[in-house]
């Protein structure tokens, strides 16, 4: 982060007249959050009524008409500063309008876009598939199925990383009604290489992403994205792991997502559905193989979000999302050794969010959000609903 700021500060000096413009915009948000206090990963601050805040700073440097640097810095109430986005962008590098980004790039997967930020997100959280921590750990491959009565078990990978940024390079552009993008990244979409403690490319392999979208009519865009690559990092090759002496890159993630954007008048709809496979199944004879699953772990997820502007200042929104996991029946590696387990490898989950927004001004938004979480396959659904009052200021 500090290097980025130093870099931005020096740009005008070093680039001289070439660096004509640096623009800083951002969003600051403060929220009152009260969740229920069940045993669930969705519980916020142990269910205590809590104030929290977040600040997103966007600093862009335009070097020339076709070359620019884009940065996002996210600062949270824990005072951790995340440099999410630091991309060198070159536009129109060919006669047919090809563009490129390199560095810490925005992953071309799905249709989240600006909706990942509080001012454009009518809710408090991102879609469930970007939030839910599964029970699959990328670092040491152990499933937390030992205590299946608790939904809090998950502290593994997400289906999709929250921020959807990673180190790599991407080529993208449009051709008529079509939009295309390809990317090569250090990490994988469920385990990006950004914050790994194992080095810049902790899983050795590269993540590969491709996206195609078509806009057959104004207001309707249909897209499909596919990503594949190793999701387990090198730590999974440690002696305590089920994958000891094996190459984690032989166990990739495959995920395909379809998405639809539709809007007209005062109505907007965003939908996405993803099918994901973490390839873990035994594929050959491994001398060192110990307890390990004989089948892959899959997940299906969807999210449907609708918004309606009731008046110039008031809008309402609702979003439904669900995660469905496949069943396994096998010996499962856990932290206390292998256990035989039958059932879904994580809890199927449904989330319904509703939000109402009131624009105090163009720059200030007040939101009320309520989130219902339902976790299936447990003796008792944990109490983990969430209520949020959030105000967002943009500049």
């Amino acid at each position, binding site marked *: 982060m500090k290097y980025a700021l130093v870099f931005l500060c020096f740009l005008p000096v070093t680039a001289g007249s070439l660096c004509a413009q640096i623009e800083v915009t951002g969003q600051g948000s403060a929220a009152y959050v009260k969740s229920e206090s069940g045993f669930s990963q969705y519980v916020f601050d142990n269910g205590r009524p809590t104030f929290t805040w977040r600040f997103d700073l966007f600093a862009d440097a335009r070097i020339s008409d076709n070359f*620019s640097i884009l940065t996002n810095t996210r600062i949270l109430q824990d005072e951790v500063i995340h440099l999410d986005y630091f991309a060198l962008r070159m536009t129109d590098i060919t006669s047919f309008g090809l*563009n490129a980004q390199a560095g810490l790039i925005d992953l071309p997967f799905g249709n989240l876009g*600006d909706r990942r930020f509080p001012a454009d997100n009518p809710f408090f959280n991102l879609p469930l598939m970007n939030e839910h921590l599964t029970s699959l750990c990328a670092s040491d491959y152990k499933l937390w199925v030992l205590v299946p009565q608790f939904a809090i078990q998950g502290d593994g990978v997400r289906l999709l990383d929250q921020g959807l940024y990673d180190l790599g390079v991407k080529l993208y*552009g449009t051709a008529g009604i079509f939009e295309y993008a390809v990317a090569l990244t250090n990490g994988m979409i469920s385990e990006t290489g950004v914050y790994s403690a194992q080095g810049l490319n902790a899983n050795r392999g590269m993540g590969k992403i491709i996206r195609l979208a078509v806009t057959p009519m104004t207001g309707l865009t249909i897209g499909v994205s596919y990503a594949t690559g190793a999701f387990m990092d090198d730590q999974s090759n440690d002696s305590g792991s089920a994958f000891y002496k094996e190459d984690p890159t032989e166990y990739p993630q495959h995920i395909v997502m379809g998405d639809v954007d539709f809007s007209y008048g005062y109505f907007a709809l965003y939908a996405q559905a993803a099918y994901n496979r973490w390839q873990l199944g035994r594929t050959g004879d491994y001398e060192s193989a110990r307890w390990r699953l004989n089948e892959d772990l899959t997940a299906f997820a969807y999210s449907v979000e609708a918004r309606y502007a009731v008046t*110039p200042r008031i809008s309402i929104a609702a979003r439904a999302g669900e995660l469905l996991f496949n069943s396994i029946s096998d010996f499962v590696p856990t932290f206390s050794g292998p256990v035989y387990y039958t059932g879904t490898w994580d809890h199927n989950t449904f989330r319904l969010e509703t939000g109402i927004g009131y624009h105090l001004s*163009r720059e200030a938004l007040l939101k009320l959000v309520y989130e219902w979480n339902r976790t299936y396959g447990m003796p008792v659904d944990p109490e983990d609903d969430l209520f949020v009052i959030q105000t967002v200021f943009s500049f």
Partner: protein
Amino acid sequence: MNLFQKLGKKAIPASFAAWVGGMILFEGLMPPGMMSQERDRTLGEIHGKIGISGRDELTEEIMHRRMMKRYDLGESPSNSMVPAYRLSEEAVVYIESAGDSVTYEPPETHPTLNQRDLLFRPLVLPVLVGTTVDFPNNDKVFHNVFSYSQPKEFDLGRYPQGRSKSVTFDRPGVVSVYCEIHQYMYATILVLENPYFTVPDDDGIFILRDVPPGTYQLSLWFGRKKVSTKSVTVRANEVSAVNFSY
């Protein structure tokens, strides 16, 4: 030697002659005190020139943000050559108040605030109170024009290329107009209490005609704000000169 000979052209014999019609337009300001043409002799005119030497920061900001859009879902970030705003699109000269008791009929024709090249054009649109403004979408993408300004709150929703929606501005004041989708898009609609306003040409020359005699506050709006106000006295059948520099 006649004109044709000077130009090296042959004169056309009278038998092949045809009628040639047209108009010669002399550009520039009339000297003060000289009316531009036959008009109501009880009214006067204000002529002047606007000199802009400061940077047009608003235009720069809008053009820059347009280019730097970062999450381009369905919209290429390509920097196609979009002309920046001309002076005639971003400056307005107007009389602040022309008398409290007079009300003016709004025009039947609708001025337009275009959405083109992911920009609003013009940047500043002056209208008389009661005027209906059209907002045509000339882009291939949706726009969602809205304003939270006190004189008129509105939200036109999203509509495609070729369609237009209208808003009637029935209270005077400054209306800031935005696009909900493209957050850099910005324009101002000046809803004025009297019809004594004009926009300069691209060289900065303006003419305000048919102004009743009196002493007025004449203001220049440039970009996002009012940048200058000057006192001017208008006399019947005369031209008053006022120049602005910013």
